[in-house]
């Protein structure tokens, strides 16, 4: 099936299998490998992207469902060479170690703050329940989200 999807501001028209997952489209067809795949059951959140303004796990969306949509991946989060406040905060607060969950974590957290859900520590911790990290113990991620929320 033919789909047209705008990713990070560029429109792509491709012929894809109906079963192709959006995350595989992003990684394998567009070569945007910043979006990672950490599980096969939609638990880990590593593949989180913004789809028409909502944070979604790209492993639970079929590419054909995203036809006509506007997608932002981690590669498209910075604007004019300026890091998004959440990207900067992750670095400032040492909110990453191996970096594999980081793109998904940043995309989720950016949306959490944007939607006003990062009101306090507890809200942040609960707001990140769809994203798993095995390295950091989350504490510095929470600090990063706090920093970005107050930026």
């Amino acid at each position, binding site marked *: 099936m033919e789909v047209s999807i705008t990713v990070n501001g560029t429109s792509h028209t491709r012929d894809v299998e109906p079963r192709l997952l959006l995350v595989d489209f992003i990684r394998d067809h567009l070569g945007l490998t910043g979006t990672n795949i950490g599980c096969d059951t939609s*638990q880990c959140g590593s593949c989180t992207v913004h789809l028409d303004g909502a944070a979604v796990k790209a492993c639970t969306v079929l590419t054909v469902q995203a036809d006509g949509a506007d997608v932002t991946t981690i590669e498209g989060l910075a604007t004019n060479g300026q890091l998004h406040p959440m990207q900067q905060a992750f670095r400032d607060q040492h909110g990453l170690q191996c970096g594999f969950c980081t793109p998904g974590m940043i995309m989720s957290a950016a949306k959490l703050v944007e939607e006003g859900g990062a009101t306090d520590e507890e809200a942040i911790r609960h707001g990140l329940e769809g994203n798993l990290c095995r390295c950091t113990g989350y504490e510095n991620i929470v600090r990063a989200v706090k920093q970005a929320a107050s930026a």
Partner: protein
Amino acid sequence: MTDTRAFGASIKRLEDPRFITGAAKYTDDHTLAGTAHLAVLRSPYAHARIMSIDTSAAEAMDGVVAVYTGQDLKDHGFAGIPCAFVVTNANTLTPEHPAIAVDKVRYVGDAVAIVVAEDDYQARDAMYAIDVDYEVLGAVTDPKEAHADGAPQVFDDVPKNEILHWQVTGGDVEQAFADADVVVTETIRQQRLLPTAMEPRSTLARWDAAMGELTVWNTSQNPHIVRFLLSLVTGIGEHRIRVIAPDVGGGFGSKIPLYPEEAMCVFAAQKTGRPVKWTETRSENYQATIHGRDHVQEVELAAKSDGTITGLRAKVWANLGAYLSTASTGVPTILHGLMLSGCYEIPNIHEDVYGMATTTTPVDAYRGAGRPEATFLLERMVDKLAMQLDLDPVELRRKNFIQPFTEGHTVATGLVYDTGNYQGTLDRALEMADYKALRNRQRDLREQGKYLGIGFSTYVEICGLGPSEVAGAIGFGGGLWESAIVRFHPSGKVKLMVGVNPHGQGEETTFAQIVADQLGVAVEDVDVTYGDTAETPMGWGTYGSRTTAVASGAMMGAIEKIKAKGRKIAAHLLEASEEDIEFEDGKFFVKGSPDSSMTIQDIALAANTAWNYPADLEPGLEASAFFDPKNFVYPFGCHIAVVEVDPDSGEIDLQRYVAVDDVGPQINPMIVEGQIHGGIVQGIGQTLWEGAAYDGDGNLLTGSMMDYAVPKAAWFPNFELDHTVTPTNVNPLGVKGCGETGTIASTPAVYNAVMDALRPLGVEKVDMPMTPERVWRAIRDAQG
């Protein structure tokens, strides 16, 4: 020394920019022109004979390049997957481990056939079209049950499934028990855990047939070991193999081994003439990537009535799984049994360890690897003894602590700890926790029917692996030294090349800090290169909290050579004698006349151009050094957990967590804290939520993230951290290791806290993970 030193500064990580922008390149992010994709058909049975395999339907499917079985791989001449740590003095057996099963499968997830196809979707489609006829055999998943007469035999040539029987003895344990005033006993189930590095494993193999050259991109903690072992498996000369571990998304031990899939990809690349890539799904990861822990421990502790511990005796059945993974036999023996004295004076110790084959996924090193199993065993028994004698667990620990030492201390198991001050970390943790107030609060709450618990863990761990002579003596199939090359470019920028392989621990930054601190260059001017065997000197990899403790020794050796050579060049250019040249803050100067100086960048340019140069000196400013430590390093600390248990629901609320660790001088405290945070969460995961489960037929019930509880952000309070600094004398910088401390310490701290909370309810034991259901049942059973 000023406070602007690069060493000790919490500077932001140099590697971060690529990770926060999506520019990092993990193995699966690499694709070469013409890459074919490999999928592995895995056994759905824990134990079965393969009667026949029909690949014809799969071969005919769209996009399929080829389908291969174990026989094809065998005919190709590849050897089996080796175990590279065959522990000595234990009658260790090493049954063959074919990369793809030939006659028999031995765990759910064992490889049966592989498909190579144009894309990953097609490969998986075809995989399901392979028809395999099995004759199902009996499964055995528990290591102690595997030892029993009549248990299913995993290998014909491994009687009673006993891969090894290892023992450690110190003192006279029989006498200690005969003379004891009190003996406490416990059977501890160290449950099986799934390492769950967020990045699944992946391999991409390219075979250049014309040149006989193999390039492998691989999710590895130790690419040089992978190259070495791959040469043994494939018969390709080690000098013709290049292994690249690009960005690696966590390992926790699970990316130490050489796995069957590496051999499969090389084989398929040779057969098809195309680059071949395999990337596992998470479900595959849970079946076919190593698991951790899984001990049955029967333990007895002997003591005098005043609480003096006099003896420890244990019998351990360690599950090794269906095949011996790369380091598997060393984990429950050397890394476990030798640590049974912990931070206590225990004069008499004896342990028998049975390493058992079962029809389960192979078990190998998982963060802490053997040491958490020792620390939990000991810390649990110490708490039980305190309870039995009605002593404060703090006072019992204090009474039995090894006194502070700086010149080595020998324990009954034969290890010589480097340096330690266990009282120091305990005192600081008690102060931070306000122990007295906590006990008062506990008493008050109990009167209100609320159950607060305070739990301790005072630990010491063996890290910085290690002296190569010891490695050889215990059966480790390699050295444990490290090497480093420091190279100055003409412009004065520095390239550091190391054989260790960080995968999230931040050594791109901390190693740059060491070089900057020592040579007076900017941290940003140091590029740390690792991960590619073609660009780095030999090294044995990143595990066992050894990276900084061992590799820094090699770096310091190279740095000293650079300084010495720089001194010669400076003496020539400044027209002074070499003895009169001093080096400080990046400047060489003539003693007594600091104005007559040259920067190290000036020297680097002079060395690289060699226009005006000492006659007898080689050009260039580059040095290589090797470092083989004389001993292991022994970080230690005290962790305190505070929990409240709801007796009606069995739910555990982790309210506070205090951790005081001593890992020696800290190069970057921000990074050390991050390592400890992550370790704590993994250790608490074992106490409260994580546990791999098999059913009686050997099916992995926790086969995906839906069933295996990886801890989430909302399950933790903020941690309260501090540290003391006791340098080691084993390496030049005095650094120990911080990668595993949190995991080793936190499991018993939280467990002991829960048991402390449940004490008034008469509960004596709850198996881990301490789920609300288990806690609730234990309370109900105790209440009759």
